[in-house]
Every structure is written in structure tokens, then in C-alpha cells.
């Protein structure tokens, strides 16, 4: 990482007066130039100054530009709702392709902790032109997330049903009136409190995330996976699940609990070689090919 030195700032200023405020969040002239290019492409000229000054305060670029590309979608982003990550986009595209290949008659899916709605919306978009009948739902406990997910659904002309709901609610499935479900996805908050308070160099959280993204969307651990299984997976007729995670211990926990209930479990790494998802399927169920996405099967 390059340090932001006086020399670097002078160099930046000689290229463009908008460039120096972008240095702290970007660390290098080339990265800063790339961001400036996007700011200039996507915002009118009279907003450039304000945009780079926000970036100086570590506001995520996605909140400034108001979108994050996600597969073929351009997900609307707003303060108070977590920005979709590339890792999520990656596994979601793999899952969508796998589902396409299954040629299901019907896909009934619930995406818990849906945030912007990105996961359910991408699956909806990727499958809308196939013969599969779609009944896709997403829920979140945050009102801001719920509003934004609905806005994203309209913006992309898709047909996901969004609800307000709590993973820890034992009656969530009845309340949503969804019992005929075959797939459950979720990217729940998975950063343990002690790591949330550490610097990114010590496996903690980056400055921009900590300062500007909602803690409600980030801090969590085993209790989320436990409740996803007991309140959604086991009481429904689901025969597949995919949960994003950040730690091997979380995958181990899911395996321990799910295998006792007759599930096969494996995990998947992302293209940065980090453990990223835990996947579950029934040995003779519709989603047994989830196994093919796994880098390890328990």
C-alpha cells in the first residue's frame, strides 16, 4: 500500500483538482483516477466536488453513486442498508446457473436477511425467461432494507415479494404464510463483535464499512445460522439451502446441527480462496447437485 504523502497529493493535484480528496480511500493515483472517472461518468458536473469530499470522509462510493452492479442488475443503494458485495454476486451467479440447469417446474425460495434484495432479485432476473414457475420471497427486520428492496424490485420490473420479518421469530414461517418452499438462501450478519472492533489488518472491518454501513447488517455469529435452520429450513419443506458466512466455525456449526436432521452439508470458497458459503441438500432431493458447488463436503 502506498502511503498518502505530500508528494502524492501534489502529483494528484497536478492531474485534477478533484483527485486529492480521493487519495485516502484509494491509496494510489491510479485507483483514485478510476473512481474519479466513475464519478464523472455517473454524476452531473455540479455534484463532483461534493462527491469527492464525501469520499474524503470514507463514505462508500456506492452510496455516493447510489448503485452497485450485481450480475446484470444495477442495485440501488442507500444509507442504512448494506451494499452488496462481489463475493455474494459470485456465488449467486453460480447458484442461478445451477438452478437453470435443474429445469424445475417450480422454484419457491425464501431469502432471509435480504437487505437491498440483491440475492432474490438476481435469481429472479436470471430465471425469469426460463420455463420455471417462480415464487420468490425476501424478508428483513430493517424497515429501511424492506423499503429499498421493494424499490429495487420495481426499478428492475421483477416479481419478488418482500416482507418485514425476524429470523429469531419462531413463527416467522407461519407469519409469512410460506410452507411450500424448496430453497432457502441468506447472507446474515456474520462478523463476531470482537472482530467488528478490530482493524482490517487484524481480520477486522475496514474504516469505510465501520463508519458508514449499518452495524445491524454486520454483527452476528452462530445464533443466526442456528435460527435460520430451526425457524426456516427444518419446519419448511425445503430441500436445499445456501448461507453466506465468513468463518469455518460457522460452517462446522451448520453441519453439526443439520446432519442430525438428515441433511448433507458442504462449503464453498470464493475466488479469493476464502471460505464463503455453507450449502445443504437432501441426499435424494431436487438440490442434490448443490454438492457440485462445494469445495468440501462434510
Amino acid at each position, binding site marked *: 500500500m502506498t502511503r498518502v504523502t505530500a508528494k502524492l497529493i501534489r502529483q494528484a493535484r497536478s492531474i485534477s483538482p478533484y483527485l486529492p480528496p480521493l487519495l485516502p480511500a484509494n491509496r494510489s493515483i491510479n485507483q483514485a483516477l478510476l473512481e474519479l472517472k466513475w464519478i464523472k461518468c455517473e454524476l452531473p458536473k455540479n455534484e463532483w466536488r461534493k462527491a469527492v469530499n464525501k469520499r474524503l470522509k470514507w463514505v462508500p462510493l456506492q452510496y455516493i453513486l447510489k448503485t452497485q*452492479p450485481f450480475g446484470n442488475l444495477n442495485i440501488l443503494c442507500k444509507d442504512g442498508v448494506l451494499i452488496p458485495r462481489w463475493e455474494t454476486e459470485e456465488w449467486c451467479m453460480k447458484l442461478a446457473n445451477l438452478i437453470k440447469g435443474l429445469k424445475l417446474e417450480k422454484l419457491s425460495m425464501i431469502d432471509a436477511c435480504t437487505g437491498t434484495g440483491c440475492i432474490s432479485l438476481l435469481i429472479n432476473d436470471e430465471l425469469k425467461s426460463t420455463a420455471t414457475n417462480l415464487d420468490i420471497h425476501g424478508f428483513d427486520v430493517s424497515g429501511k432494507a424492506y423499503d429499498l428492496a421493494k424499490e429495487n424490485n420495481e426499478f428492475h420490473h421483477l416479481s419478488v415479494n418482500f416482507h418485514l420479518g425476524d429470523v429469531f421469530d419462531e413463527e416467522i414461517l407461519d407469519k409469512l404464510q410460506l410452507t411450500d418452499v424448496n430453497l432457502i438462501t441468506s447472507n446474515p450478519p456474520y462478523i463476531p463483535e470482537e472482530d467488528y472492533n478490530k482493524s482490517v489488518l487484524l481480520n477486522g472491518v475496514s474504516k469505510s464499512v465501520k463508519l458508514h454501513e449499518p452495524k445491524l447488517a454486520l454483527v452476528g455469529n452462530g445464533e443466526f445460522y442456528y435460527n435460520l435452520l430451526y425457524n426456516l429450513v427444518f419446519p419448511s419443506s425445503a430441500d436445499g439451502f445456501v448461507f453466506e458466512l465468513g468463518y469455518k466455525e460457522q460452517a462446522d456449526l451448520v453441519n453439526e446441527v443439520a446432519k442430525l436432521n438428515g441433511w448433507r452439508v458442504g462449503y464453498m470458497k470464493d475466488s479469493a480462496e476464502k471460505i464463503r458459503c455453507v450449502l445443504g441438500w437432501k441426499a435424494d432431493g431436487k438440490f442434490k447437485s448443490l454438492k457440485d458447488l462445494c469445495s468440501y463436503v462434510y
Partner: protein
Amino acid sequence: MFKRHISITSCLYSIPKKNKLPPRPKWLIKEDEIKEKFLKGGSGPGGQKINKCNSKVQLTHIPTGIVVTCQATRSQQQNRDKARELLALKLDDLYNAENSRNNIIHDRQLKLKQSKAKKANRKYKKLEEEKDTPSTPEEVIMDPDQEFDEFIKSAKVDV
């Protein structure tokens, strides 16, 4: 007067029209001959802990070893497409040398420049003749991609 007229047309004649350029040689890309990698930079924890907005795509063409990368847009899907275009142009350069799209474009730009220079010369002469006409400076509008390339060229910093 007559002479000059001829020289303009003959000069313009050899410059291919923009829409008459060879097509982008996309057919040179065979998916089973390329290795695709997503470069996210750094070895940080990833996932919810970081909110990166760049998504660099790297393609390696296995038969020739040519490597191209693209991080021009914020969309991974678009960067994948653009990287394939770039690779196709490089392969075209390799296989078609003289007649590659790149070469023809380069040639065209050179010729355009020359013809502009000639015109400018004539304009200058004309201005000399009728000195009292005030000239308005032309505003140069660059498209953002081009502007970015200019930035990079003029930046001259190693980071």
C-alpha cells in the same frame, strides 16, 4: 484553386469512414482457450468486512500466453465483456498484423491528423490574408474514457 480542391478529395479518399472499419474480431475468442481470473487486490478478509467497488478481470489466452486485464467499469459482467474485446484485438494484431483492426484505426488516425494539419495550414494562411476576422476558440469535448486515458498518460507517476 482547382489544384487544391483535388488534393483535399484525394487525401480524404484514402481515409476509411468510421463505419467502414473492420468489425471487432470477437470470433477469435474461444472460451475453452482462455483462463479467467477475478483480481480483487490485496489479501484482506473480504466479505462483509470490506466494500470494494472495483472488479478487475484478467484473461490469459492459453495458446499464445497473451494476458489482458480490464477494470474500466464497476460491473464485473461488463469488465468480462470488455476484456474479451481487448483480447480479440490483440489476437487480431498477432494473426493479421497489417490488416488488423488496431492497425487500420491507427493508420486512420494518422491520416486524419495529417489532413487536419494541412487544413490548419490553409486556415492559417487564410487568416493571415483576412486578419480582421476574430477567431473563436474551439471547445474540445472528450468522452470520459478518452479523458481517463489522457489523465493516465499525463500522470507519469509510478504507484
